[in-house]
Each structure stands twice: as C-alpha cells, then as structure tokens.
C-alpha cells in the first residue's frame, strides 16, 4: 500500500517538475528554432520533434521554415520611355539560416522591411531600364498573329492622320509612339526581367539568412492618364474597324447591284441578239424555200401570185368592168 502511494507521488512529482520546468519543448513541422543561452546561440533546431533544453536558462526563438510570401504595394514606376505604369510584384522567400537570421534580422517585421527595400528598388531599377513591351510580353509570338498585325497597320495609319492634323499635343504623341511600338520585337521579356529582379535582390539575401525563391510581376496596369489614352486608342481603332466593315458591306452590296445590272443587260441583249438571229434564220429559210420552189418556173409563179393577189385585193375595190376582157369573150359568141 505504502509502496503504491510512493510510486504515485513520485509520478506526480515528475509530472509537476516537467510541467513547471519544461526541460523539453516541441518543435512542430514547418518551424525551426534558435536556442539562446545567456545571449549566446547554443543550438539551432531545423528538424521537427521533441527537443531538450536547459530549463529556465535557454530561450527559444521560433521561425517558420515554410515558404513565405512577400507582397509589395503596387508601385507607380516609369519605363524607359518615361511612361508611368503600376507594377504589382510578389515574391516568395524563406529563412534558410536561422542563426544568421537571428543575428542580423531577428524580427519578422524587420525581415519584411528589408525585403521591401531590396525588392522594390530592384523592381524599380529593372522596369526603368526597359521599354514597356519588355515588361508586358514574354515572347514574340504576337508577331505571328494575323489580327495583331491588322491592328498594327490600322493604328499606324491612324497615327499618320493624327500627326497630319497637327492638333495632338507632344504628350499625346509620345503616348502614340509608345503604343505604335507595341509590335517591336522584344529581346528579353517578362520572365527575364523577373530573373533580373531576383538577381539584383539576391545579393544581399545571404547576409540576412534569407533565400529569395522568386520575384514575379503579378499585375501591370497603366497609370490613369495613360489608361485614358489607351482607351481612346482602343475606341478609335475599333471604330475604324467598324467603319471598315460597314463600308465593305456597302461596297459588296454595290458590287452585287452592279453585277445585277451587268447581268441583266448582258442576258437581255444576248437573248435579243440571239432571237434576232433566229428570226433572221426563219426568214432566210423561208426565202430559200420560196425561191427554191418558185425558181422552177418564174413565169408561172408570177401568174400564180398575181391570181392570189387579185383574189385578196379586188373584192374590196369598186369595179367597172369592160366586156373587152377575155373573161367576157363568150358573152357574145359561144365558140
């Protein structure tokens, strides 16, 4: 019985000692810890599990081992053409050396502040070095697009017209120039720019114990005044296309109407010619038949035709006949 109680009490004491003094601590997955003893770094834990420490003496500072994200505010930056765009970048990073991180940075907020400085300036430098198209595009596949080339051409002619008017301000001209150059082939592209941003930022990362995994442009937008110019251009470009379609429609309609008149005239005149030929053929054939038959005895034909004509013509005439006619020969004598 006493023995039982002794065992029980011992267990409870051990539990109390463990609970109060905590010679262990749990390091969960995804975390790493720096153990400091009297201000000196005693140990760095990067693997999860149950860890030992000296109670009341060791201080534990935990850091995330996971991939962390950095999200900068969109920045209004000039491109190499001095046009302002909003660039929204994000980055992923992690603490690879907790010891260095503890020594040089310590606080997470501090780390974000450092990242802000480094990445934002890198983004700014890189964007300012290149024309807008290099930030927007990643390849030159657009040059193979039929519709894009079409747009480009109409845009080109639009510019010529605008410049001819001489009404556009110098600022508008520079915007138009920028937009007209949309189809210039690019040499680097967004991915390369991202690479360059990382390279520029990466330099100072090891001294913070940080590894920068990527810096990507999440979104690019035009500054407000540039947006308006682009809207105007899009509208005028679409209007041109719409006008073109309507004009084409009218043209095609006129073409049909022209074809109608042409075909009508051709078909009718052809038919008329053909009909005249056929009629002539009939006349010719008839004449041939007549002459063929009548030429056998022209003298008899003449007599026969005369008989026929008299028969038709004479009954309507008023007549005074002389008995001198052969017809009346037998009126006076019977032989």
């Amino acid at each position, binding site marked *: *019985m006493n023995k*039982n*109680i002794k065992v*029980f009490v011992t267990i409870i004491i051990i539990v109390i000692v463990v609970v109060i003094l905590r010679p262990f601590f749990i*390091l*969960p*997955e*995804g975390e790493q810890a720096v153990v400091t003893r009297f201000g000196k770094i005693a140990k760095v834990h990067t693997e*999860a*599990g149950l860890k030992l420490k000296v109670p009341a003496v060791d201080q534990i500072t935990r850091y995330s081992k*996971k*991939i962390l*994200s950095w999200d900068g505010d*969109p920045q209004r930056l000039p491109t190499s053409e001095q046009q302002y765009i909003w660039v*929204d970048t994000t980055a992923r990073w992690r603490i690879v050396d907790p010891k260095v991180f503890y020594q040089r940075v310590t606080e997470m907020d501090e780390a974000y502040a450092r990242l802000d400085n480094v990445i934002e300036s890198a983004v700014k430098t890189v964007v300012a070095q290149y024309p*807008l198209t290099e930030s*927007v*595009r*990643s390849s030159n596949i*657009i040059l193979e*697009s039929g*519709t*894009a080339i079409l*747009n*480009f051409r109409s845009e080109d002619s639009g510019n010529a017209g605008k410049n001819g008017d001489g009404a556009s301000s110098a600022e508008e001209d520079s915007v138009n120039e920028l937009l007209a150059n*949309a189809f210039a082939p690019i040499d680097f592209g*967004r991915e390369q720019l991202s690479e360059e941003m990382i390279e520029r930022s990466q330099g100072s990362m090891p001294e913070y114990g940080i590894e920068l995994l990527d810096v990507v442009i*999440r979104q*690019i937008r*035009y500054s407000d005044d540039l947006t308006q110019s682009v809207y105007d251009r*899009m509208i005028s470009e679409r209007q041109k*296309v*719409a006008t073109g379609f*309507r004009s084409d*429609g*009218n043209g095609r*309609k006129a073409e*049909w109407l022209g074809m*109608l008149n042409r*075909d009508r005239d051709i*078909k009718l005149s052809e*038919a008329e010619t*053909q*009909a005249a030929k*056929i009629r002539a053929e*009939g006349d010719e054939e008839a*004449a041939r*038949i007549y002459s063929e038959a*009548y030429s056998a005895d022209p003298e*008899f034909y003449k007599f026969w035709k*005369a*008989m026929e004509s*008299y028969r038709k013509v*004479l009954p309507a*005439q*008023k*007549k005074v006949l*002389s*008995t001198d006619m052969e*017809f009346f020969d037998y009126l006076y004598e019977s032989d």
Partner: protein
Amino acid sequence: MADQKITPEKSKNRKLNSGMLLGIIIAVIVLIAVVSSFYTVNANERAVVTRFGRYHATMEEGLQWKLPFGIDQVTKVTQKVLSKQFGFRTLQAGVSTTYDQKDYSHESEMLTGDLNIVDVTWIIEYRITDPKAWLFNVDDRRFSGGDRYEDNRDKTLRDITQSVMNQLVGDRAILDVMSNERDNIEFQALEKIQENLDFFELGVKLTKVRMQQVVPPEGEVQDAFEDVNKATQDRERLINEGEQAYYAEIPRIEGEAKQLLAEAEGYRQSRINKANAEVALFQAIYDEYNRSPRSKQVTRDRLYYEMLTEVLQKSDNTDLIDRGLENFLPLKNIGTGTGEGR
C-alpha cells in the same frame, strides 16, 4: 459489540478504498486515454499525424488510433476538389447565384501584348494530393485583408496563378485573347502554374484553368467593341441585301431571255412552216400545170377563172360596160391588170 465489529471492518474498507481509489484514477486516465485515442477520418479527407510535432504518418479514411495526451496531433486535410475565382467572387451559390459587387479589377485587369487593356475573369480547380506538403511547406498564417477562409497558402496559389495568367495574356493580342487563343492560354496556364506549384512543393494538383469572361474594359471601350460586332452584322445584312436584289432580278431576266428566244424560235419555225405550206400548195398546182403543154393552158385558165369568179362573186356592185360602147371612158380599167396576169 456492533461498533467493535464494525470498526475493524471499516479500517479494512479504508485500506481497500485507498487501493481502489488509485485503481479508479488510473482506470479513468486509461479510459480517457483510450477514448481520446480514437478518431475517424472521412472518405473525403486525409489525416496527417504529427508525433511530438514531427510528421509521423498520413492516415486514410476509417477509424484510426493515435497516442493520447497531445503526443500525437491530428490535422485533417480535405480531398475535395477546391476552386478559386479570379476577378469575381460568388457570394452565394445556388439556383440564382449571387456575385460580390466589389471591384476585383486588381485581379482581372490585364495588359495585352498589343498594349491594350482587357478584363479577364477565370477560375482554377485543384486538389490537395500531398497533405504533408500542403501542411508544412508553405506558410499558412492568416493575414489581414484577404478573402474569408483564405490564408497565406491560398494567397501563394493566387499570386502564382495571377502572375502566370498575366504573363500569358501579356503575350498575345487582345483579339486573340478574346477569341481563338483562349484554349491555348488555359492549357499553357495549367502547365505553367503546375510547374510553379511543384517548384514550391505546395502538394497541389491543378485540374482545371478556365477563363470565364474575356471582355474589353466596361463603358465606351466595350461599346466600341460591341459596335464592331454590330458592324459585322450590318455588313452581312448589306451583302445579303445586294445578293437578294441580284437573285430577285436575275432569274426573272433569265426567264425573259428564254421567252425572247422561244418566241424567236416560234417565229422562225412559223415562217418556215408557212413557207413550206405555201410552197406545197404552189408545188401541187405547179406539178399539175407542168404535166404537159395542154395542162399548162388548162390550169392557167382554171386559175384565172376561179379567181375572177371569186372576185366578182364577192363584189355586189360591179359595172359592166360593153366593148362596143365607143365614147364611154372607163374610170378604172381592171382589164390592164388581167392582161398583165396573163
């Protein structure tokens, strides 16, 4: 006596009780341990077990067992297909789905390769295929200002997706993005996003990228695009009108042409027939006439008299003048004509 009897029994009980108390406490602890050791995993989830914080195992569906008192920790990870919306949010899905009216242009507005502006909304669908990686590889703390139920890990997924879509749209002309390049963009986005997710070991398999709306910016620009559609319809209509006018007229003209030809054909044939008929009549008489010198004279006379008979029969008012009448001047002398006929 009764007391005396009772007391030793009591002390005996006490001894028993203290032993029993210990037993009961241990039993209760064991019972709690056993009860709290069991947990169920649903068919639509996986359970990741950590022992003293360290990854231990991933459990399948069914009744599972773990070490009690916080030694083993269980985190459940869903296996359902999850989705994310970009450029819009569904507030309440249902028969009539309601959408969030907030402005999501920070996701949807993009620059195209020809430096135009386009509004793209799209969705992705994905599944957590590696619960361990999902839980431990990417930061999953909450942050302020995000969507409901979304943490840093979701944001990472969003950031990657958005930058890939931006890049793909930025490489193409606006009209292509709006029409024939859509499938291509979806396909390439799926590959590229997955590449990134694998690089960051998010433990996620992307199953679908689908572009929803691809439209020009609202307002005047959209109207201008609309007008092009109208213009193409106008063009069709005008062409149809022309075509219609053509086909309304030409077949009739063709008919008329055929009519002309047919009439001419009729004229020709009738001329020939008439000629043949007349000639046949002539021929018949001529054959008769030509048989011998006598028949010539007879036929001639017959024709002559037949003619005169017919002519005189039809005339009811003919004056006849005797040849002996010397001083009568005939007004009309038909005899000349007859003489000629001879």
